[in-house]
């Protein structure tokens, strides 16, 4: 008997590898955007900073796209699965399990409903950030308006991803997909 089922492993990969990876990369991306300033770096320093920034924003954009697509098309159908007639053990049907218990129904009507929608804002914002970093490159070091706009978008994307990730972790605790 294995420790984790296939559903659990898939959901872990969705949440921890891709969702968690995105959240972990945020600090690096934010640091690089705050750091890349012509006034405090040499030309080679800026070039290196841009190289890292391109890498981290590309990884973040890819991670978040894989996270929302795997969430919507892989994990979510398992979460929504309807139990066959006569089934009384709802532990394999997380949505039905949560809705059947008035004390837990909140985790579906609020938790999952918010998570599934707000998560989809992140790839749109993150793709814009990555595109701008690739398109403008070293100009970011001298263009404070653009840099500030990117920092704002990155923080908003992180906030949405943080909400989705936290709710995902709490939902997994309340009703794991097994």
């Amino acid at each position: 008997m294995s420790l984790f089922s296939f559903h659990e492993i898939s959901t872990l990969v969705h949440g921890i590898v891709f969702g968690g990876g995105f959240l972990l990369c945020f600090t690096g991306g934010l640091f690089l955007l705050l750091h890349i300033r012509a006034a405090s770096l040499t030309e080679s320093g800026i070039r290196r900073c841009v190289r890292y920034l391109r890498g981290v924003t590309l990884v973040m954009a890819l991670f978040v796209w894989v996270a929302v697509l795997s969430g919507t098309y892989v994990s979510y159908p398992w979460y929504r699965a309807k139990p066959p007639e006569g089934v009384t053990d709802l532990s394999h049907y997380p949505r039905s399990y949560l809705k059947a218990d008035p004390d837990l129904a909140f985790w579906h009507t609020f938790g999952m409903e918010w998570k599934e929608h707000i998560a989809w804002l992140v790839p749109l914002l993150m793709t814009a950030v990555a595109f701008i970093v690739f398109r403008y490159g070293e100009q970011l070091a001298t263009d404070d308006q653009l840099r500030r706009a990117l920092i704002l978008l990155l923080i908003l994307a992180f906030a949405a991803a943080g909400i989705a990730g936290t709710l995902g972790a709490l939902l997994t605790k309340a009703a794991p997909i097994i």
Partner: protein
Amino acid sequence: MRVTRPFDSAQDREPVERPVERQMGVSRQPQLMTVTTKKKVPHGPAAAAILSAGVGAFALGGLTLWAGASAGVMSALALWAPAGSLTGKSGIAVIIWLLTWMVLHTIWKNREVSLPRVVVVVLVLLAGAYVLTFPPVFEAFHP
């Protein structure tokens, strides 16, 4: 063997001018000039990317509210039954986002656009998207 240097190594920072060098008339400042003299890309492409993300996000919020207010819309948006209406909401929002980006990029690619103004518009759109995707809001419109 390649030696990996720490990210914030001394050579990446602006060099400190030493007193001896100052006396000798040595200046390290010109190193930075090459960055500032490169051709500047106008803000149009960035504005197009940012604004389209805001439009796509707001579209998702609008579709969420619409689906919450109408059972017919909710079932019409269920493009793939196992995942329900989320497939339609996200799919249509992504199409709107990409179309908006394509159109705005074509119009603005060589133009200087006021970035602060675009950012304000996007903040309004994103605030709308955050509010409209908040369950107590769209559930208030359930028939």
